[in-house]
């Protein structure tokens, strides 16, 4: 594994070409692309850089004590279901707080979207109570960037020729990962039901690639960084490549508080707290916000000023609105033999058979399934279904069979953009830097709840076809609990009254401000948004560089 390159350092009082806020899949990709094209880039990241030696299989740290995720203590959140309610303190949004952003600890599911994800509104029409709209770009416009990302970072998979599969201009650079027990069982189920299935496209190396080691099948993927460097997260790919360009500085443990504007309405720089909580102003010719679907809109709202009293770039009033995740429907099941889904990649086979549904069902949207067992022993024990023994010798025995002979049938689905589902600033609660806390407002659209139930019923059919002995549904209700796919809150569009950024991710209201991450999404996709986030970032960087070269920023 290569040591991270040092990068370089820039003065804060002289404007750099670009400040990029966030070092996740979006920010790191923008920084890599712009720095390699010869622009000077400073990346600000609130998390710190973790050495491989710190990347332990530490369940307590990963899931309980927030070792590399956003902090419920220094960054408290509030949540409510209805806009008229007072929000109560409760963590609702999670993301990795580390160099590499959430790709630092992701599972690596790297699904492409399909053409329908970009134009479903035109094809299927609207849904009452939702703001379904077409994207300002098409699949074909994004396709070259999907391929570019897959080849730049290393994605393992196999292009499927099943009906409905999208066009790939290039094959995957790496063959699929090892198939797992859950993958075999999903394949068995799909073949019995006459469903299509395919190798899961994963941002994990199945072979050595660009000097990085392949996957060691340890099973600690979801929620854990990869100490081998086999996961193709930004910390192992885009960030070191950006730093090697000689035109990029990464400043970690910098907590951005505000984007500064001049009276001409142009961004002049970014104000942040360094690791010692000193305020620093980094001057910049342009700013690219890639802080994720919750923190990007929060930062725009925190940057309100006299010209932008409702928040920066918010003349549409849509900053923070249309907060989406991906829907889910889960059923767990016991099998007769050892499944051992906790070994190897979390996901090895998927089906996209229900990607588009029969309009007669009355749903707009769709999804896909995988079978998996994605948690180590501690979370497994804490999440044993309530029907099972919860303590004593019977509990001990059940944990063994549950860990080794059960799996989770996971439906990943669309969720509708609803304007009242939002990210906003809490009027009272402050974070440890004295800034208004993140407030979320969310309730599921009734249409989506019906769709999740439809998916859960199909999941039970898959499990039955696979030979499941017993099944345990996770209840579907109005409260998603906690979420990590943060989408839709600064949506792209051609109409400045109905979107926050244009088709090139430039804020309609501020010429030298760009927002590129999950917040750009107009619709949620069927699940697994990271590849699309990263493809958008590659595409945006291409256009931003052209604008800069033509002096159009």
């Amino acid at each position, binding site marked *: 594994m290569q040591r991270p390159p040092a990068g370089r350092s820039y003065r804060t009082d002289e404007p750099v070409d670009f400040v990029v806020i966030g070092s996740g899949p979006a920010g790191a990709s923008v920084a890599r692309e712009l720095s390699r094209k010869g622009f000077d880039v400073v990346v600000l990241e609130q998390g710190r850089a973790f050495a491989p030696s710190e990347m332990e299989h530490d369940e307590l740290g990963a899931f309980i004590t927030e070792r590399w995720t956003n902090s419920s203590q220094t960054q408290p959140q509030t949540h409510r279901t209805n806009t008229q309610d007072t929000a109560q303190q409760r963590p609702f949004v999670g993301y990795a707080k580390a160099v590499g952003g959430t790709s630092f600890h992701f599972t690596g599911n790297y699904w492409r979207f399909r053409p329908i994800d970009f134009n479903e509104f035109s094809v299927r029409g609207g849904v009452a109570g939702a703001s379904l709209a077409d994207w300002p770009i098409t699949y074909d416009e994004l396709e070259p960037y999907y391929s570019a990302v897959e080849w730049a970072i290393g994605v393992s998979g196999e292009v499927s020729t099943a009906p409905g599969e999208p066009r790939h201009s290039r094959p995957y650079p790496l063959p699929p990962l090892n198939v797992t027990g859950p993958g075999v069982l999903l394949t068995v189920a799909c073949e019995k039901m006459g469903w299509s299935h395919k190798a899961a496209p994963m941002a994990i190396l199945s072979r050595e690639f660009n000097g990085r080691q392949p996957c060691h*099948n340890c099973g600690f993927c979801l929620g854990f960084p990869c100490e081998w460097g086999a996961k193709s997260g930004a910390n192992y790919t885009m960030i070191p490549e950006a730093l090697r360009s000689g035109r990029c500085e990464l400043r970690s443990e910098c907590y951005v508080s505000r984007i500064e504007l001049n009276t001409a309405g142009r961004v002049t720089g970014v104000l942040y707290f360094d690791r010692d909580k000193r305020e620093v102003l980094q001057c910049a010719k342009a700013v690219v916000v890639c802080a994720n679907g919750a923190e990007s809109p929060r930062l725009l709202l925190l940057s309100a000023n006299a010209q932008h009293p409702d928040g920066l770039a918010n003349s549409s009033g849509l900053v923070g609105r249309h907060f989406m995740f991906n829907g889910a429907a889960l059923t767990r099941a016991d099998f007769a033999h050892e499944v051992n889904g906790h070994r190897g990649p979390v996901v090895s086979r998927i089906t996209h058979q229900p990607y588009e549904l029969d309009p007669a069902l009355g749903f707009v949207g769709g999804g896909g399934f995988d079978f998996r067992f994605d948690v180590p022993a501690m979370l497994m024990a804490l999440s044993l279904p309530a029907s099972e023994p919860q303590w004593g010798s019977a509990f001990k025995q059940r944990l063994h069979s549950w860990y080794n002979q059960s799996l989770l049938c996971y439906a990943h689905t669309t969720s509708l953009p609803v304007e009242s589902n939002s990210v906003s600033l809490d009027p009272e609660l402050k974070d440890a830097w004295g800034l208004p806390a993140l407030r979320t407002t969310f309730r599921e659209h009734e249409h989506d709840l019906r769709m999740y139930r439809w998916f859960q019923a199909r999941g039970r059919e898959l499990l039955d076809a696979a030979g499941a002995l017993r099944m345990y549904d996770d209840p579907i209700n109005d409260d998603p*609990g906690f979420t990590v796919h943060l989408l839709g809150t600064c949506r792209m569009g051609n109409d400045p009254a109905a979107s926050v950024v244009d088709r090139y991710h430039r804020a309609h209201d501020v010429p030298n401000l760009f927002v590129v991450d999950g917040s750009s999404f107009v619709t949620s996709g069927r699940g697994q948004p990271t590849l699309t986030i990263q493809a958008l970032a590659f595409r945006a960087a291409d256009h931003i560089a052209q604008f800069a070269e033509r002096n159009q920023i």
Partner: protein
Amino acid sequence: MRLWRLGKKRDKLTFTMTLSRREFLVGMSAVSAVWLSGAIACRDSAPPNADTHEPDANSAEQPAGFVHFAPDDAADVEAIAARIFPTDDTPGAREAGVVYFIDRSMTTFAVDQADFFAVGLRDLNAAVANAHAGVARFAQLGDAQQDAMLRTIEGGEFFGAVRFATIAGMFALPKYGGNRDFIGWNLVDQRSVMEYKPPFGWYDHPDNQIALLGRIL
């Protein structure tokens, strides 16, 4: 994707959360990142490269004594933990040193729950004294009596908190004080060698793939 679900009963509880559905279920922290980075020692050696990659925890580091609990309280906590993971044909919470994990947590990431645990133990022992004349402490009861007493509180917050803490101590890396000699991991056959080669289980074994699918994926 929805990852975990948190209880809404109390705000800052590591061990008293209500756990339920979705992909996995996680407690919330009661600790600041600043504290954490100071309190948890990290390896400073290079990452492993050999095929026999051992996990990161230093299982040789065993707590010498209690840093928070008085001996009687420690005995009660250990007794409760030992009813959750009893010592039967396999080792349980007692052998795994779970009480040392919980003890240490009371001064570190669960420091804000020390009072809650103290009150819970006091109430439990009051109930013990009430039900068993001449007995002052839960730990003095026999196994069956302990089970009967715990069944009266198993729906409550205190038992939920001790259960959560016990599970955490059973499976957290040994460096946190419990899961001694990987007793917790061994209980479910989560191996401490962190590399696997296929086949991982029965279903992906080539012979069984042939039987199930007529081919090898």
